[in-house]
């Protein structure tokens, strides 16, 4: 910049900076700013850059551009098979549903299934093969592995150990056997932090062999859950939940559910009689049931130690026992997996004595590896310490994070000379291993899975491995010198050798299309219950007496599983079905205990147990048993590469020992004086006498409850009512069926591209879920009843939001759907303020603006990705309605009943959500409108909601009422 020449010289010198700071002066910066603003203005006159179209060179024959394809596959998290149906848009998986043909799914999907797609596109997932400290390629990695395997072969695999997860895959079983064939001195170790083998041990004692029980919940009139989350956790829980819910319809012979559990579970929320009971007291309860049923000859043989029960427990046992006795062959007793062998045995004995075996309990013999076949983690750690392990191959998920604290696996791992980890993230275990291979995601790999009844489902990839990852099968193939063989070839070879069919190609295609291998399901076996050996074990039963301190219970988390989904943001932000906590895992305790200790929600405490300490905030849960603390596992990751999970919550694994993986006694809490606010998805749990939810008995319903009837029916109209000549879309939600499992919330989130906002914004109530599940506690804090109420836009006939929008961004369609027009919305948020249901969500920030290309792949192309500053809410999955309409109208038909299924409805395991067209009398939703349980939330407001609810009906035992 030059100065006018007539300016005095000293003036110039005075103004000139001593040293040129470089870059811009302020003036030139402003000049540049003005110029670029001007040029930017000009740019708006230019044509936008032409968008490109990249058609296929050769189009796959099955593909119709623009339409989604669905592929059947399956996962085996936890070991057993779950059938999936994956939606794929031009080769890009975007959404997971359940496979209706699969016996474990019946078309429903749970929380974990919904998370799989987001996990696939996790930007933090591991991408690089590593040998020592050096990154390498897949090819080099596999050739180094082959070299190492050759060396090992010379000694017969001496010092080779494999750490794997329990998995019933037939192909994996064969590959593992082949590994042992090549390396006869190698050993396999199985580790699953959430797996317990108590039930298997009990089965071996009771039947002489390991039998897997499959329950026929639909046949059971009386169900007793002893610390078991039957309807929400476990490989068949989706199916159990459906079967259970189908028996919750009044006037059709309802079943009755008794639950004794330490803290609320989704199963417990549906219980007719729920007894809060510490995990260590469950044994006494089971023994109480057996002694109350002493009239049954078989049970009278069992001599049990005398375990005192208090008055309430006694009353409960008496009533339950009587109910069980009057339903022989039509009852079911289930002990939770963390309960010790003795309790498992008592449950088996009760079922056997009540003639439930063969009717409500089907027992299956496992074709090959039983859970007890391999050694666990303990012997491996001992071997490492004694220097017997030369090469360790880890294909289990992050054992250094989830191993019992007393094993000190993280300290032991570096002592192994050669360690290899196949991991999905550069996690805690990866940091301790010399070699690292990124694992292929489930949706990138070929494989097979098996259910407890031996029925086999295939796993097929939806996309080629994004980062060239290896599957476990491919890793094992590398070990046995088949590095070239990809998992597709291995799987095909395995099955073509297994079935020996003439026309294998055709069958193979049929299996892939259905996701199932037909004819693989075994028949249940008859098993003789061995009373003598059971008696032998039980007579030596010495349940632990309460010592000093409280009971600590380790619980499987419903969102992050064993921690593997911790880095999936939508998992962290899902309000925990019971506690409604997002982004964290507070220690759960009863309100009474919290009051005694003077603890507020969010107060950070030190938890001491057996010389180990962790720190975390507390949260009171009404209905939790007194004097016990429940810790959810899988939080508190420390690996830097897991950017989402790192530092969220605390790591309860560090308190958990191999002696007491389920629950332990001797916990002490100490105040730290610190406070950590909990990011809650719901803050108010009381109904304050408002008629929001109803819980009635069949008798009360028959009499016609006045307060329920007040919540429905016509209201006075000032204007002539609006006409809806065409379809009238509506929803009905059955509170008798809803377990609160929150699969619908995630189904909605993935279907509708709903963003995650993060902990800080959840704390400011800016969570974006279109569908939330409200939970209300009714009754006293110690023994409350709780009701789950899914709440989304009610699509009011007279919608309060529509009256106040100044720009007509929310309008009513001619079919009664309350539409949100993102492009009109200017963000006044009047609509949200005027919505009595509080279901509208505002994009305070540009949540979707900075997504990486990898994350963008998860977006559903049928739904607009919203920008900052607009309101959004449930649209009744309008994209699915319009798709069904176009499908039907193209053929000149009307939309058929049942053709529109919303995302939440599709995910729901219990079919609590029904969607349809009120103009069609044959639609289920229309029929449910006439149900005596039908009511509207906030009916008195005159909003005429299109979403109606069905009151919960309970089936209490008159003796306990």
């Amino acid at each position, binding site marked *: 910049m030059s100065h006018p020449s007539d300016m005095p010289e000293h003036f110039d010198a005075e103004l000139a900076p001593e040293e040129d700071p470089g870059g811009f002066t302020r003036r030139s910066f402003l000049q540049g700013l003005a110029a670029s603003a001007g040029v930017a203005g000009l740019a708006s006159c230019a044509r936008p850059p032409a968008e490109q*179209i990249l058609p296929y*060179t050769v189009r796959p024959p099955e593909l119709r551009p623009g339409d989604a394809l669905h592929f059947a596959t399956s996962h085996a998290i936890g070991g057993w098979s779950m059938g999936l149906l994956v939606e794929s848009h031009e080769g890009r998986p975007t959404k997971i549903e359940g496979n209706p043909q699969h016996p474990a799914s019946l078309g429903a999907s749970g929380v974990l299934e919904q998370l799989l797609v987001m996990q696939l596109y996790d930007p933090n997932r591991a991408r690089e093969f590593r040998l020592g400290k050096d990154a390498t390629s897949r090819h080099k990695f596999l050739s180094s592995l082959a070299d190492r395997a050759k060396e090992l072969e010379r000694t017969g695999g001496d010092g080779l150990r494999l750490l794997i997860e329990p998995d019933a895959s037939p192909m994996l079983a064969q590959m593992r056997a082949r590994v042992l064939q090549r390396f006869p001195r190698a050993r396999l170790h199985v580790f699953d932090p959430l797996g317990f083998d108590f039930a298997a041990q009990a089965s071996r004692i009771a039947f002489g062999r390991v039998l897997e029980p499959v329950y026929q919940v639909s046949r059971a009139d009386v169900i007793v859950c002893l610390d078991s989350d039957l309807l929400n956790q476990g490989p068949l829980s989706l199916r159990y939940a459906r079967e259970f819910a189908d028996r919750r319809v009044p006037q059709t012979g309802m079943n009755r559910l008794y639950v004794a559990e330490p803290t609320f579970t989704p199963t417990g929320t549906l219980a007719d009689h729920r007894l809060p009971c510490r995990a260590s007291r469950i044994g006494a309860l089971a023994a109480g049931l057996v002694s109350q049923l002493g009239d049954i000859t078989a049970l009278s043989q069992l001599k049990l130690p005398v375990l005192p029960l208090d008055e309430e427990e006694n009353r409960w046992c008496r009533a339950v026992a009587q109910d069980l006795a009057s339903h022989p062959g039509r009852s079911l007793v289930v002990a939770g997996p963390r309960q010790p062998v003795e309790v498992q045995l008592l449950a088996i004995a009760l079922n056997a004595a009540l003639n439930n075996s063969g009717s409500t309990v089907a027992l299956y013999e496992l074709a090959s590896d039983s859970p007890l076949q391999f050694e666990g983690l303990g012997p491996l750690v001992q071997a490492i310490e004694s220097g017997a392990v030369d090469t360790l191959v880890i294909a289990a998920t992050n054992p250094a994070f989830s191993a019992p604290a007393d094993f000190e696996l993280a300290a032991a791992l570096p002592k192994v000379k050669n360690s290899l980890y196949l991991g999905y993230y550069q996690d805690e275990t990866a940091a301790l291993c010399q070699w690292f291979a990124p694992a292929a995601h489930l949706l990138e790999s070929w494989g097979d899975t098996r259910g407890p009844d031996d029925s086999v489902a295939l796993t097929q990839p939806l996309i080629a491995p994004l980062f060239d990852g290896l599957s476990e099968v491919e890793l094992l193939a590398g070990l046995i010198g088949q590095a070239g063989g990809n998992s597709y070839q291995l799987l095909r070879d395995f099955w073509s050798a297994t079935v020996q069919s003439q026309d294998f190609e055709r069958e193979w295609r049929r299996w892939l299309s259905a996701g199932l291998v037909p004819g693989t399901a075994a028949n249940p076996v008859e098993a003789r219950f061995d009373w003598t050996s059971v008696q032998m074990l039980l007579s030596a039963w010495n349940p632990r007496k309460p010592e000093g301190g409280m009971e600590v219970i380790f619980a499987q988390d419903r969102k992050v599983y064993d921690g593997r989904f911790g880095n999936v943001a939508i998992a962290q932000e899902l309000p925990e079905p019971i506690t409604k906590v997002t982004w964290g895992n507070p220690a759960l305790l009863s309100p009474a205990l919290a009051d005694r200790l003077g603890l507020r929600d969010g107060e950070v405490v030190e938890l001491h147990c057996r010389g180990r300490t962790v720190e975390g905030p507390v949260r009171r849960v009404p209905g939790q048993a007194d004097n016990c603390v429940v810790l959810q596992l899988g939080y508190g990751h420390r690996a830097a590469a897991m950017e989402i999970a790192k530092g969220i919550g605390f790591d309860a694994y560090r308190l958990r020992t191999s002696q007491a993986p389920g629950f332990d006694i001797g916990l002490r809490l100490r105040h730290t004086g610190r406070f950590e606010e909990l990011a809650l998805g719901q803050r108010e749990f009381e109904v304050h006498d408002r008629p929001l939810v109803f819980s009635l008995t069949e008798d009360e319903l028959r009499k016609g409850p006045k307060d329920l009837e007040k919540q429905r029916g016509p209201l006075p109209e000032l204007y002539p009512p609006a006409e809806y000549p065409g379809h009238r879309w509506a929803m009905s939600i059955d509170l008798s069926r809803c377990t609160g499992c929150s699969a619908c919330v995630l189904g909605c989130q993935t279907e509708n591209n709903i963003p995650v906002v993060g902990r800080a914004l959840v704390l400011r109530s800016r969570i974006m879920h279109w569908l939330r599940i409200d939970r209300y506690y009714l009754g006293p804090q110690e023994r409350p009843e709780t009701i789950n109420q899914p709440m989304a836009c009610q699509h009011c006939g007279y919608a309060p939001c529509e009256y106040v929008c100044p720009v007509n961004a929310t309008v009513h369609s001619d079919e009664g759907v309350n*539409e949100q027009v993102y492009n009109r919305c200017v963000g006044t948020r009047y609509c949200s303020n005027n919505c009595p249901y509080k279901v509208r969500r505002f994009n305070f920030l540009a949540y979707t603006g900075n997504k990486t290309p990898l994350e963008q792949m998860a977006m559903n192309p049928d739904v607009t990705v919203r920008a900052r500053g607009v309101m959004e809410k449930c649209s009744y999955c309008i994209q699915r309605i319009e798709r069904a309409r176009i499908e039907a109208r193209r053929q000149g038909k009307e939309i058929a009943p049942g053709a529109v299924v919303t995302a939440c409805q599709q995910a729901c395991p219990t079919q609590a959500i029904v969607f349809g067209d009120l103009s069609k009398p044959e639609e289920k939703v229309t029929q449910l409108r006439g149900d005596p349980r039908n009511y509207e939330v906030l009916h008195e407001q005159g909003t005429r909601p299109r979403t109606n609810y069905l009151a919960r009906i309970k089936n209490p035992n008159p003796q306990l009422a």
Partner: protein
Amino acid sequence: MSLFTPRANTLGRLALLALLAAPIVAVLFALLYARTPFYTNQAFPIQQPVQFDHRHHVADDGIDCRYCHDTVMTSWTAGFPPTERCMGCHSQIWNESPLLDVVRRSYFQGWPIRWKRVHRLPDFVYFDHSIHVNKGIGCLSCHGRVDQMPNLEQAAPLSMGWCIKCHREPNSQLRPMAEITNLRWTPPDDPSAFEALAKLYDLHPRTSCTTCHR
């Protein structure tokens, strides 16, 4: 001498008038501008990486639109022909033409041809070809005389007002299914013919927001 001449009064009045008129003129200008082809992107022939001439393929050869745009009856997208479709003919005819180098390279190397989009709708618009074509709206209604375009250009404004106009009064755009891709078809003079077609197609055009915006 006064500073202002009598003309200054006129000038002043004119200036005031201009000041008042300015916002109105600005709005009018904006409204008019939004209707010009410059704003709607109409009448800008776009050069493609392959010199593909619709005049030749449609008018001279008489190839039906649906031979290349094959999903127009069944999917929301009309379907862009995969390179193999080009090669179906051009492996036999003009198979050495340098004009088709790009096509051959794409086919043999497996890389897509990077065509430039001519008809661009915003991302929040969910337009479905299949339902329009199956309900008797011909290609001509939106795409114009493609058979007369050396380089394809956008014929219609593709604005929301233009869409809605037809959704309210669709009859004049209807044609029998046999003539759906015929660009030279002349509509009958008799309006009752359109009414018959509307009845035949069981036409219920929708104007709810979510028909197109989801």
